[in-house]
């Protein structure tokens, strides 16, 4: 039984094996015998990682994507200066630090028109982008999945009403709709923040800004709320389609005949079976949210105080004609890399989640029975 599990391994495979062994160990701490019962599941996990290890693009995407997440988390702490630190204010040397090119006296990536350190702004901006993704996707996707499941499962009039509603949202270009919503919402959100001590401290810690500046996060928050509104229709459509397909399976009819309730059938049986494509789309959408958020803040401008990538590009774009390229290129690169990373990873995730890929990987790298003892068991 162990003979057929001898694989030809690369260095990364040993890494992933160690990772899975570690995860299994942790689970075994809480549930005894788990590893023994779920042996085939663990093997599948291992093969998934092997499949990932054999896709250079996927690895590159994962590294970039995870890099974005890590920098988003620790960015504000490793930034050389605070986001509101200005070389001009600190040193009084206006000429030297007004739009200083990269490398000038301590400012690695240069400074902007207020003399702020561009590198620090980008690191703080990573947190804002990360928070946008973290706040937009789960909520947008949950709304979309629930609407899609209900529409697909019940069909008929329910389906018709929910899908026409979805059509209404899809009929407007998402960016324009979000722009309209966010410009309408900014004032109200700012008001809410101003009146609540709790919101102020929560937002300042989430977005890595000082409590004084919590009010200035309102435009970003309004963008996030606007993105909830425009983000669900895609998921509703997809979930509905997948549900219609899955609903035809006999086990759905069988569970109905067994007297399971409709929510139980929808969420316990249909949803887990259609989750694969939804996860892939979610991964691809992480990049989408970063891009849309940056695009919206670029269009709305005016967020001078908050280090948002889109806003930095917008502020810097007026100096581009003067040859001050760094204000546009560096934030642009930051956006490009984080979006690209998740897109690449999402693409290869689709292959990894496909059981057929796993089988072919298994087949390809499996050695013929080795006579000497394999290192497994």
């Amino acid at each position, binding site marked *: 039984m162990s003979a057929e599990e001898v694989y030809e391994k690369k260095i990364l495979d040993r890494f992933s094996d160690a990772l899975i062994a570690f995860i299994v160990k942790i689970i075994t701490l809480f549930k005894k015998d788990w590893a023994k*019962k779920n042996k*085939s599941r663990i093997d599948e996990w291992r093969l998934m990682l092997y499949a990932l290890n054999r896709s250079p693009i996927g690895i590159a995407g994962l590294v970039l994507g995870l890099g974005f997440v890590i920098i988003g988390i620790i960015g504000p702490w490793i930034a050389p200066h605070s986001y509101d630190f200005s070389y001009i204010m600190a040193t009084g040397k206006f000429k030297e630090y007004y739009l200083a090119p990269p490398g000038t006296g301590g400012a690695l990536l240069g400074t902007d028109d207020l003399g702020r350190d561009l590198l620090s702004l980008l690191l703080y901006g990573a947190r804002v982008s990360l928070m946008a993704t973290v706040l937009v996707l789960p909520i947008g996707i949950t709304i979309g999945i629930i609407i899609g499941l209900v529409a697909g499962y019940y*069909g*008929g009039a329910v389906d018709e009403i929910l899908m026409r509603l979805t059509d209404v949202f899809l009929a407007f270009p998402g960016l324009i709709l979000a722009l309209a919503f966010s410009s309408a919402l900014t004032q109200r959100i700012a008001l809410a923040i101003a009146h609540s001590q709790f919101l102020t401290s929560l937002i300042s810690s989430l977005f890595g800004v000082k409590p004084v500046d919590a009010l200035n996060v309102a435009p970003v928050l309004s963008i996030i709320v606007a993105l909830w509104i425009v983000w669900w229709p895609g998921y509703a459509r997809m979930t509905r389609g997948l549900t219609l397909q899955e609903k035809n*399976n*006999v*086990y759905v*009819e*069988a*569970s*109905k*005949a*067994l*007297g*399971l*309730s*409709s929510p*139980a059938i929808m969420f*316990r*049986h249909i949803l*887990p*079976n259609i989750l694969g494509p939804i996860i892939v789309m979610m991964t691809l959408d992480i990049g989408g949210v970063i891009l849309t958020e940056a695009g919206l803040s670029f269009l709305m401008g005016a967020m001078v105080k908050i280090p948002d990538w889109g806003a930095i590009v917008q502020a810097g774009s007026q100096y581009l004609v003067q040859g001050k390229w760094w204000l546009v290129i560096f934030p642009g690169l930051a956006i490009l890399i984080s979006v690209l990373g998740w897109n690449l990873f999402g693409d290869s995730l689709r292959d990894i989640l496909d059981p057929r890929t796993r089988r072919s990987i298994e087949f390809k790298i499996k050695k013929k029975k080795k006579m000497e003892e394999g290192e497994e068991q």
Partner: protein
Amino acid sequence: MSSPQFREPLIEVKDLYVYFYTYAGVVKAIEDMTFTIYKGEKFCMVGETGCGKSVTSRALANIVPSPGRIVKGKVIYYRDGKPINILELSEEQLREIRGKEIAYIVQDPSSALDPLYTIGYQIVETMIDHYTVKDWKEGYKRAVELLREVLMPDPEQRIKNYPHELSGGQRQRAVISIGLSNMPRLLIADEPTSSLDVTVQAQLLELLRRLVREHGLTLFLITHDMGVVAEMCDRVAVLYAGNIVELAPVDEIFKNPKHPYTMGLLRAVPNPQADIEKLEPIPGTIPNLIYPPPGCRFHPRCPFARDVCKREKPPLVEVGPGHYVRCWLHAE
């Protein structure tokens, strides 16, 4: 050996009409269906593909799949002697009956189980949902007993398996044990063995027969196999194009078939005892149910068809004790 008499009705189907509203037109899948299943009996429904057997069985639990609709009729279920019309219950009341009092075993065991859950989970799930067991722990204990009862080898291990890890026969046993998990009173088995090996088929039929005997279940078996009918049933309804054409105790059907379709059906099945030179297929094909033939639906294929058959639909008449036929040959 005469079939035992069952007098107490369990479920009564009265004047049932089920239509399918498709783009091509209205498919009149079932018309004028009336029959009774008595408590404790093994009732069989037999007929060709597409004659409405499965639809009838689904109508009993009110799960006719869309675009099908029950146009009119009654399905009266006797719960502790009190009649309830299943077709008038709310979804919530239906859920209490489905799976708990009327259990359903589907045709294809390979797709009747959710691939993402272990069979143990799926057995316990229905019991939890119907409050048959207190908690999952008790449920799993009961699941092992159930699997042992349906003769699943090594049940303690099997409850941890996923459906794809089991063979077809084992899967069907799992499906049967899910059906039995809440000790239903009526077990509807829709061609439970048609996708299995002959040897496995025989085992499963024997198993069903034993379960009916030991638990006092009532079995409603749907099949196209006359051999299974002869083996399993007390009474048989022969279906043709959405109508019951003959309804009789099983011995009567085989010894004394009255309807030309039943006779044809029996001649089309090999009989090892009788030395027939070749099998006789029934000429023609089943009619298009969007435009069913007027009068008796069997007349285009019937060797005894007369003028009246083309004009008027024959009534269901009693020709012997418990023996009903829908044919003009016997209607006068």
